[in-house]
């Protein structure tokens, strides 16, 4: 624990003077044959990788409008340069979004534009050689695909799109990342990211039922693979095993119980997460998401509700319909999919739930907006519902709520530092540094308003913060889910069913 370099906290978020190569040393563990081959990638770096990589880039330019337009039109105004948490935390020039994108843009220019072919020096074009590939491996794994840069760019250039494309090109030449490929293999083999087999999942759910019975005296169920349930609940797999995730899972269960709505978890589609997005592969995204559509059909449910997970919600909300739609076999009165916050909020508005705010009186709460929810999805039918609905739930569940610096919330929120496929131990230095802006803003309200609970709705954020916050001398219990607060406050048995 002691050997991570933790940046010094300042009173406020400051743009550091630029430095070159501070993070050059930090490389992801390379993917191994065992995890590459099942995903259809070469077992190791192919011999003619330069040619293959350039071909793949050419191929993708014809498939992704975002890539073609974003590689063309950046004017290098630098508005995005100081917006990335990794730049703010590491000072590394290549962690400025524009410069990260330049690593690919310079290759694009060299092989696909007259200017780069004729005057590589003037427009800064680069060969796709060993040195360039090395930079790609390093810096395209120092982007959490958080899209903060795209908010401030005059053309909406989304560096996450470039990062995804770069990872897909690297996979195509046999240069993958162990963390993501290994996890995707687990999803295909077992059904979830953590590789939890069905008996273990069943055991956990039964244990939690017992736990809730003991603490509340109510028989709240966590059913598995029950055909004919009304709702299929798809949660991130961390919700079944990790703290504080599990507290939110119990929260969802209590909400279903209290509303009197029959639901089920699916052992094959237990996992909402979809790392296909992190590696940029459309085919993998589609295959991973298909399990859930298939399970919804198999279990004959009428609705799908997605748990507290940021990137999973992006994939579910924005992509499912394209990947595996149409979902016309589900109840058309509800959006497909529905976020668990939308689900609970709807019940609350309809008077099905009673929340006792006093149950959370020990907390002064603030909210961390998770990137993928904030900048890549929506809840409810109004733009910005993704901010208002979780906040409405928090306010309904506790007395004391404050906001952090508005430059660090809502669409301007800062990434936790662990998203987009970098939540792995070998990248700890990056994760610690990347959390700096968020931690700075959190510290401000901890000082000023005595905040002691940061509510959020993302499994990756929860995992990242519980590990990182202690390094900044903040207790890990400070982090928890929105449904953890709901779970504390919900009155069971007080009145049951939808009014």
């Amino acid at each position, binding site marked *: 624990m002691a050997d991570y370099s933790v940046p010094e906290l300042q009173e406020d978020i400051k743009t550091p003077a630029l430095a070159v190569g501070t993070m050059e040393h930090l490389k992801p563990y390379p993917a191994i044959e065992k995890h590459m081959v099942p995903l259809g990638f070469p077992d190791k770096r192919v011999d003619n990788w330069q040619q293959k990589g350039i071909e793949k880039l050419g191929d993708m330019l014809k498939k992704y409008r*975002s890539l073609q337009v974003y590689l063309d039109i950046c004017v*290098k105004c*630098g508005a995005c340069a100081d917006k990335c948490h990794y730049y703010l935390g590491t000072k590394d020039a290549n962690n400025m979004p524009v410069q990260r994108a330049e690593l690919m843009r310079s290759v694009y220019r060299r092989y696909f534009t007259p200017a780069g072919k004729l005057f590589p020096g003037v427009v800064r074009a680069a060969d796709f050689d060993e040195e360039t590939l090395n930079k790609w491996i390093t810096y395209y794994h120092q982007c959490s695909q958080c899209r903060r840069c795209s908010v401030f760019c005059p053309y909406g250039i989304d560096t996450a799109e470039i990062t995804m494309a770069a990872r897909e090109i690297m996979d195509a030449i046999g240069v993958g990342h162990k963390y993501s490929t290994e996890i995707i293999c687990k999803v295909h083999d077992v059904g979830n990211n953590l590789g939890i087999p069905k008996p273990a999942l069943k055991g956990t759910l039964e244990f939690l039922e017992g736990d809730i019975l003991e603490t509340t005296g109510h028989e709240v169920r966590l059913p598995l693979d029950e055909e004919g349930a009304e709702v299929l609940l798809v949660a991130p797999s961390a919700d079944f095993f990790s703290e504080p995730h599990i507290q939110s899972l119990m929260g969802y269960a209590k909400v279903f119980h209290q509303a009197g709505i029959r639901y089920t978890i699916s052992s094959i589609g237990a996992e909402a997460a979809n790392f296909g997005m992190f590696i940029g592969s459309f085919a993998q995204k589609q295959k991973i998401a298909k399990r859930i559509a298939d399970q919804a059909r198999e279990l004959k449910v009428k609705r799908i509700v997605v748990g507290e997970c940021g990137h999973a919600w992006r994939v579910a909300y924005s992509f499912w319909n394209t990947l595996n739609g149409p979902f016309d076999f589900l109840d058309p009165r509800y959006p*497909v999919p529905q976020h668990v916050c939308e689900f609970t909020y709807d019940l609350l508005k309809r008077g099905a739930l009673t929340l006792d705010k006093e149950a959370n009186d020990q907390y002064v709460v603030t909210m961390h907006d998770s990137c993928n929810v904030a900048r890549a999805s929506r809840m409810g039918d109004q*733009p910005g519902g993704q901010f208002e609905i979780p906040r409405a739930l928090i306010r309904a569940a506790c007395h004391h709520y404050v906001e952090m610096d508005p430059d660090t919330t809502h669409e301007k929120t800062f990434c936790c530092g662990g998203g987009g496929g970098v939540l792995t131990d070998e990248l700890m230095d990056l994760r610690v540094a990347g959390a700096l802006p968020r931690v700075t803003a959190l510290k401000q309200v901890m000082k000023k308003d005595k905040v002691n609970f940061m509510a959020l709705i993302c499994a990756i954020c929860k995992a990242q913060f519980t590990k990182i916050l202690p390094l900044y001398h903040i207790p890990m219990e400070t982090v928890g889910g929105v449904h953890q607060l709901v779970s504390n406050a919900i009155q069971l048995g007080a009145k049951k069913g939808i009014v």
Partner: protein
Amino acid sequence: MLTVLAYLVVGIFLIGFAHRIWLYASCPAPLKIPTTPAPVTTTGVVWRLFTEVAFFNSLFKGDKWAWAGSYAFHGALVLVLIRHLRYFVDPLPEFFAHVQIAGIVAGLVMVGGLGLLLLRRLIIDRVRYISSPADYLWLLLLLGIGGSGLLMQFCVRPDIVHIKAGMMEMWHSTEASLPTMMAGDFIFLAHLIMVAALIVLFPFSKLMHLGGIFFSPTRNQVDNPREKRHVNPWASN
């Protein structure tokens, strides 16, 4: 000679520009990726794009100095271009006779804005780091165009009457020529050559943001993936 060049310059621009726009327009957008919160209706998206083009909304959020310089430059550029119509259109509609003063002030603002953008590039370490020679050259070229224009306006006047005659004539008569009698005429020649360079290089450069901004999926997509199925044409489904 002048006629051939004029058509060549305009031709390269039109074909190059159309080609890139065709590239953008014909390339599929496989997934819904608007940067949210995003409009949920098409009208909303039109408004979003309008605020980006007319006010540089996102840049304003991102960087106030860049916005100031850039807005001064682009806004003034529009006015200057309108004013330039008088060199190409005869008879000049009444309206344009009234905007001449605005056009002249705009020339100053444009050069000022460009100066600010150049200073930013030189002073701020991040912007200096990301700048390639080409990025400076664009600013210098535009400053050259603006500077020579102002020079003709305020100091060394060329033979405007003959220039206008030449500019009008060159589109249909190969006999067209430009005057080279006074010092101002040479400045004008430099002005014209720089403009021609700008127009020719335009489609091959970052200046394509003029068209590209309308094709940016994070800005031009409606946020309605649940309500309306977005289809990826190349998906094997």
